[in-house]
């Protein structure tokens, strides 16, 4: 096989795969027990970062960008006039192994355009994973895309070789999907997700009885939604996420600000700015749900259907609930401390440890790493000085926004001058 041909294929098929944001390589537990190649031990490793600042952990490619579907938001859509290519199974295996041996990557993330039909495509993806595991003795990380509509048998087999499976919802609402991807059926997304969830449950219960039960997708499953392509609200997005987390035990939901790739009238124009700030706020909300004990209805509801862009969602919640503050950091329980703006989980844990030895004052908090410029309005500690003034929510917001150095601050001052 010629080097130049492989090179061309890699360029085409990596370029087409880059819109899939997931690059996680964590959460698996595949030990290198057979003197083979590689291991995945729970902690992910980002081997490098793209110039857009995203982690590169996996070799992320499409098996092919030939596709029978014509989804408006997708660069690989049938009607798009682009170069097409397809890898052979062995070529993907060789690239993965040789990149892995050089410590470039943690493993492979393999997705594909749909050629012929769902099962035919899924079968090829599974064949790559199977080859890597059984023939190449590879214990690194493998993430396979679940092809919407793939059969239960194939999804079962996929999970035996892959660490993670994912199917991208792409459009958060059924109506949006109908409009932008008329060939696709909402139920086709749900089907493989359901199958994988049930297999994982079954694996976990069998594992308790028979220790040698073969692993099934030990790093779970994830999905991705495109933000800002179909006019959806933040509330619609986060309620969908919340539903997916609860109903299908997803490990992660990714939010991908829509990057204009089409002149289609149904979509934002080419050249429209990628909504990175909105994406960032959605991730912050996602974290509040998963790690900070928030209920989605506290963050977004019919009164607040969209996230504030100028302040983060935790601060926004705190300003709506000033009656719950201030908290005494030397007494408050963990779940309440985690709700204080400026306190991350790391700081919370440090406070809980350190306060067993002494009552903490402002100096202590500052050196531990608490962001006092925000937190000081919401807490008291072992000090005679504290914010005694009763600010209204809007006063407080004004003070905090003006005293902070958000990386997005420019965006807002810029906007303000436009209107002044």
């Amino acid at each position: 096989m010629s080097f130049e041909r492989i090179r061309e294929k890699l360029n085409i098929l990596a370029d087409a795969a880059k819109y899939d944001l997931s690059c996680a390589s964590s959460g698996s537990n595949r030990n290198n027990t057979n003197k083979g190649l590689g291991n995945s031990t729970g902690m992910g490793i980002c081997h490098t970062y793209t110039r857009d600042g995203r982690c590169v952990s996996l070799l992320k490619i499409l098996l092919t960008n030939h596709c029978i579907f014509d989804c408006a938001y997708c660069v690989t859509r049938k009607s798009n006039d682009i170069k097409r290519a397809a890898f052979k199974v062995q070529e993907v295996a060789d690239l993965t192994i040789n990149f892995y041996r050089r410590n470039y990557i943690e493993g492979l993330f393999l997705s594909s355009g749909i050629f012929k039909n769902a099962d035919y495509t899924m079968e090829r993806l599974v064949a790559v994973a199977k080859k890597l595991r059984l023939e190449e003795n590879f214990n690194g990380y493998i993430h396979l895309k679940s092809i919407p509509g793939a059969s239960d048998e194939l999804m079962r087999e996929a999970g035996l070789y892959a660490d993670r499976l994912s199917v991208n919802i792409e459009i958060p609402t059924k109506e949006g999907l109908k409009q932008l991807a008329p060939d696709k059926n909402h139920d086709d997304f749900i089907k493989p997700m359901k199958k994988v969830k049930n297999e994982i449950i079954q694996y976990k219960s069998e594992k308790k009885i028979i220790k040698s039960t073969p692993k099934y997708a030990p790093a779970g499953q994830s999905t991705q939604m495109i933000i800002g392509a179909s006019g959806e609200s933040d509330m619609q997005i986060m309620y969908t996420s919340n539903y997916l987390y609860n109903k299908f035990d997803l490990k992660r939901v990714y939010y991908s600000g829509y990057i204009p790739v089409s002149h289609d009238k149904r979509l934002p124009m080419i050249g429209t700015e990628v909504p990175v700030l909105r994406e960032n706020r959605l991730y912050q909300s996602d974290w509040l749900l998963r790690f900070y004990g928030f209920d989605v209805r506290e963050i977004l509801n019919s009164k607040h259907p969209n996230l504030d862009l100028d302040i983060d969602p935790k601060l926004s919640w705190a300003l709506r609930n000033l009656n719950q503050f201030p908290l005494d950091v030397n007494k408050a329980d963990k779940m309440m401390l985690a709700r204080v703006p400026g306190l991350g989980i790391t700081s919370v844990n440090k406070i809980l440890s350190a306060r067993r030895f002494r009552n903490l004052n402002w100096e202590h908090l500052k050196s531990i790493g608490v962001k006092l410029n925000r937190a000081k309005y919401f807490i008291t500690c072992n000090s005679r000085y504290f914010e005694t003034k009763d600010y209204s929510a809007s006063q407080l917001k004004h003070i905090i926004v003006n005293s902070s150095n958000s990386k997005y601050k420019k965006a807002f001052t810029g906007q303000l001058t436009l209107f002044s």
Partner: protein
Amino acid sequence: MESTHLLYDGSFDGFLTCVFEIYERKLNKPSIKKESEFQSEFFSEKEVIISDQKKAQRVWSGIEKLLKSKGIRIVYYTFLSEIIGIEDILFKVIKLAFDTQRNIISDYGNPHVLLLSKTAIKVGREKHRMEAFVRFQQTKDNIYFANIEPDFNVLPLINNHFTRRYADQKWIIYDLKRKYGLFYNLDKTEIIHIDFNIKNSKNDWFTLDEKAYETLWKDYFESTNIEERVNTKLHVQHVPKRYWKYLSEKQP
């Protein structure tokens, strides 16, 4: 009163032996330094301490009993930072534990304890970076070879990771700053010292395949970037420039 300078060989055992001697001989105002870093002062005593594995082991198990696994990890990581003067801070924390007979490793209100915790995090970050940024190149005699110049002495910390991961290929990771490396020979990993001059003949070392895969990797790195989202500040924050030298994807 005069202070006593204890000089050791730079090894962890040597440092622990110093701690042993301080307690054994009830030394006053002790200060522990690497022999190579010592500059003599007036009005102070100095003494060279010979590393002793048995004494070191006794101190180490004493520390472990009090500080548990989390604590000894912090102590060892901090030691590997090689920051000048770190031995004295380490000793203060160890002494605090011995004096109070408590596990004080989470007493972040104490500035010395907090400093240890922060330093251990920095060393841990460097360890993780090396696990990420090592780039092996395949030599003609089929050894995967990498050079590193980490900020801290993290080779002892990354040994396990690479030995477990690359069990079926020979590899060398060489720390050019500290002039020693790890060599895995398909059986076990050993410490090696190489006397070599890389600059002359580097291109002859590696296979033709090597060049090809480096090119493919560089291509991949470029194709996976999304131009509409470029964020150089974030990129450099994650991959600081001092590491670029050994990253194949950052070579011209």
